[in-house]
């Protein structure tokens, strides 16, 4: 069906007078003006945390991302500073962009110590597509999507994060861990 614009709209006398409708429009805009203006004052006095205006001063202020948000993948860190990762390589295989690179290290038969761990764990964020497949693939809950998305660099090589840069205290990721546990349980992964 073709879009039809009626260019011969019959205006009522009230609308033809222009002025009443102009005043109506001006009242609407002035109302916004004064409501927002008065909304500013408690904010600048520190009485209120939020303005009436929704615009966020981005670098200074941040919005809270929803928990399902997939930022850069990171490795949760144990209390002693070691990763949960056992260097099985499942995330490496699951990754559709091949951005994960793991060099595994192996225990040479010592008792009461971890059997496998990553010697090197590199994620190239220049290649990563933030799909979250690594998180789903991981059997050890050892890689999680954080809510950090500000990873711009001037140098392409700096986009490659090594193990030390990737390790994040597990407490910071606790919300995401709880979320993924419920979600993956629900979908019967």
């Amino acid at each position, binding site marked *: 069906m073709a879009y039809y614009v009626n260019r011969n709209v019959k205006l009522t006398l009230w609308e033809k007078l222009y*002025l009443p409708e*102009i005043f109506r*429009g*001006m009242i*609407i*805009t*002035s109302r*916004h*003006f004064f409501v*927002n*203006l008065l909304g*500013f004052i408690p904010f600048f006095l520190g009485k209120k945390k939020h*303005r*009436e*205006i*929704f*615009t966020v*001063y981005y670098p200074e202020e941040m919005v809270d991302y929803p928990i399902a948000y997939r930022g850069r993948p990171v490795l949760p860190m144990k209390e002693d500073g070691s990763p949960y990762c056992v260097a099985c390589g499942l995330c490496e295989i699951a990754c559709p962009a091949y951005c994960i690179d793991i060099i595994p290290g192996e225990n040479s038969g010592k008792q009461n110590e971890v059997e496998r761990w990553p010697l090197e764990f590199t994620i190239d964020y220049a290649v990563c597509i933030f799909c979250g497949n690594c998180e789903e693939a991981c059997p050890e809950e050892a890689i999680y999507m954080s809510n950090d998305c500000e990873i711009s660099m001037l140098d392409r090589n700096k986009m490659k994060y090594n193990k030390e840069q990737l390790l994040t205290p597990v407490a910071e990721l606790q919300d995401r861990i709880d979320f993924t546990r419920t979600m993956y349980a629900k979908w019967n992964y």
Partner: protein
Amino acid sequence: MIVDLIVTLVKILFILAVTVGFFAPILTWVERKQSAIMQDRVGANRADILGFTVLGLFHAIADALKMFTKEDFIPDGANRALHTLAPIVAVVPAILTFAVVPFGGNYSLFGKEVNLVIADLDVGLLFIFAIASIATYGYVIAGWSSNNNWSLIGAMRTAAQMISYEVTMGLTIIGVLMVYSTMKLTVIGAIQEDFLRWGIFLQPLGFLMFFTASIAENKRIPFDNPEAESEIVAGYFTEYSGLKFGMFFMAEFIEIVTIGSIMTLLFFGAWHIPFVSTASLLSIFDFLGTTGSNIVVMLIHVGVFFTKVIIFIWIQMTIRWTLPRFRYDQIMKLGWKILLPLSLVNILVTGIVILALQ
């Protein structure tokens, strides 16, 4: 003689400081910030000095610095002399109008009568119109000398629009003239000491038409066809950059102030507070002596005048950010078919009423 000269110089400096020094830069900030707040945005707030942004007020300084340091570009094929002359012709009349605008009454300071107007002409009102029409030449010269199609279209639109609305403006003013029976702006201001003789009560239709026509004269939305961004780039100042572009903008912002002051002067009681006469104000501050009370009253009057001007500036800004642009034929229709007959009817009705009251 010397004292007169000094007093006049002080008045000229005051007007220049208020219009060019204060209003023109501050209005660039006001326009951004007010439009932002009206549209639920935050507005200009990035320019800072040592981390202090002061609600983005430094944007005025940043703008001025940018204008000063930009390349002054003159396109090939442009008429260099006229291209340079045009912004001057546009901005000078805007400032010159203030020569006859009284921003206060008559005060005796140190045994001397001081009239707060630079040139108290007998034909002050005519002078304003004569000077304001000169600005049209500036815009037409700018459009023609730029050697650019958009500029020329903008200039033609400017000429057509300004001439059409000047007719309405002039005829509207005749109503005001008939009511006050004088062209001297100081006298018109002084008459309005009586609240019931404010122009808005004597000439309500005249006020609306004058306001419409003066916004059209200033080429601001909803009458901004001469510089319609979405149609003809920037109209007559497409080829301008740097301080010349800034001068066109300054002319626009000063004209906002001019419109506000003329509106205040003719229709909203000039420097008077409603129901408070100058004599009663003087008697309140009588304990300060003649000069002292006169100084206080003068300051109050100047403050009241500029408060009214600021309110009118706010109304103009609100209109600018509320209404969409008229189409070209709608502007011409409004000017010639609606406002012109209405202003003639206004004159007729005013004449009949004056005759009946005699």
